[in-house]
């Protein structure tokens, strides 16, 4: 019984930090995560944005995507930090928060062998970021390499809304 009590005390002591680590922190993106992600969003128009904290053009685009998410509640917005060394969850999270993307579905590459993560997503992708993949309701994927034009995203989003009717 004493042991049980101790276990509960340990649980109580660690619970807040465990919850804090889970809430808002980008999820680790590992082998198999891409298929899970596609499966989880099947049938929903989804925007998947690949970026990184050291990427110059990404810094400009990220707040625009934050605004896009606000303006398009019908689109699932997913971000994946695809920097090759994924050891900066704090910097990643703070940039996402500042861009208004804190509440998006956020992931961070979590494999030192980033090639195999990219290979699962697109074997031809060398790691250039930013990169945006627009996944339509029917699963059709449109890839935008480099910074996306918000006008193009709006157009795609409108087309997705139209397919509901």
């Amino acid at each position, binding site marked *: 019984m004493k042991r049980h009590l101790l276990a509960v005390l340990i649980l109580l002591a660690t*619970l807040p930090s465990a919850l804090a680590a889970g809430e808002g922190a980008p999820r680790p993106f590992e082998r198999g995560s891409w298929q899970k992600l596609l499966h989880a969003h099947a049938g929903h128009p989804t925007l998947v944005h690949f970026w990184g904290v050291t990427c110059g053009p990404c810094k400009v685009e990220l707040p625009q995507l934050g605004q896009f998410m606000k303006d398009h509640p019908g689109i699932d917005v997913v971000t994946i930090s695809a920097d*090759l060394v994924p050891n900066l969850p704090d910097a990643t999270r703070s940039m996402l928060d500042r861009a208004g993307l804190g509440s998006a579905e956020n992931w961070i590459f979590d494999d030192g062998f980033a090639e195999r993560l990219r290979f699962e997503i697109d*074997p031809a992708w060398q790691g250039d970021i930013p990169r945006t993949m627009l996944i339509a309701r029917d699963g059709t994927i449109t890839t935008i390499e480099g910074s996306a034009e918000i006008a193009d995203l709006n157009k795609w989003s409108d087309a997705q809304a139209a397919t509901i009717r």
Partner: protein
Amino acid sequence: MSSASMSYRKPAALMVLATVMLAAVPNLAVAQMSHQHASEAACEETVLRCATKVTPAFGPDGTLWLTWMAGGQISVASSKDQGKSFSAPVQVTRDRLNLDWGPDARPKLAIDAKGEIAIAFSTFRDQAFNGQVLTTRSTDGGRSFDPPKPITVNNESQRFEVIGFDPAGTVFAAWLDKRNRVPAQQRGEKYDGAGLFFASSKDGGATYSDAQLAADNTCECCRLALAFDGAGHPVVVFRNIFEGGVRDHAIVTFSGLATPGDLHRVSRDDGQIAACPHHGPSLTISPEGTYHVTWYTNGKARKGLFYARSRDGGKTFSDPLAVGQPNRSPSRPQIAAGPQGLVMVWKEFDGQKTSINLMTSHDDGATWSKPSVIADTADSSDHPLLVSDRRQTYLSWMTKADGYHLQAIEGEP
């Protein structure tokens, strides 16, 4: 905190708590356990085995020197038996620095005809990933190094340095520098990319001349390639930003250490993408005086790895030759003119393993051998580099799973 310790009878409130914990534990456990798995490094110490980036150079006496980044430090060691054994490492950095870990960053070393060693590397100096280029040198054959010093007094971001000794023993250095961004923005102008700056050192890398601009608005996130032509003039290849935001490769041949020549275009790939490829070029100059360049592009005109050569000092280049299998993510092409001809290596990935592929040319790049796989590894790895002594060219490759690898490239009959 195993689930067994929770499998006992308890009031409902505690059961709820346990359920919440069970839900929270997997995330927490993943966060704690993933550190090693997510790292490119095999271990966290400063030894070679733990390095993520290793740069080689041969000294004039045939000694192989390596500099590497591991455990937050830059270290140096040498080998007199082609990489089979190494001297005790000498640490170049004192404090644990936030070293530039970008995919195209690495410590550089250059060795002069007397065996003196110059080193350069980049750090991230703040939370916004602004870089700083630091340099140091050894005047006692690599036994000790001066405290690293900034290459320039300017405090704007600097990254992607290259260094080399010219035939007269002067160190030439070039790097990407954001100093022109602030004045441009103050004038209300948009500033793209970074400036290609350069300096030189007549004291073996102890002090450098004032930084000068060679070309402004170049792509800010790719490494540079440096070689010296037959007259000992520096030649630099870099990803430029051409009219309309096109990020294609350009080349500048200096007419002196302080005099950049005209900028010429290596290829029209139409890389009109505002993105960071983190994937710079490679350059070598053969005894015939021919420039040989390999590069990666994701342009509209072509995508993948390419090779081209110039026989007029970089003014015009041959039609780009595609390198590697497009469905195997070919990457990180390196080219070197060695004692046995031209050697080109690059990485391919088949979904499980990274392989190093080789092509050679014995007619100054006019024709190339069929590609062959010369090494592979099943985990992350550094770029494949090429290094030559007087007799032959070697593949120098750091891998997480299999450690450091120096392999003689056999000449073809």
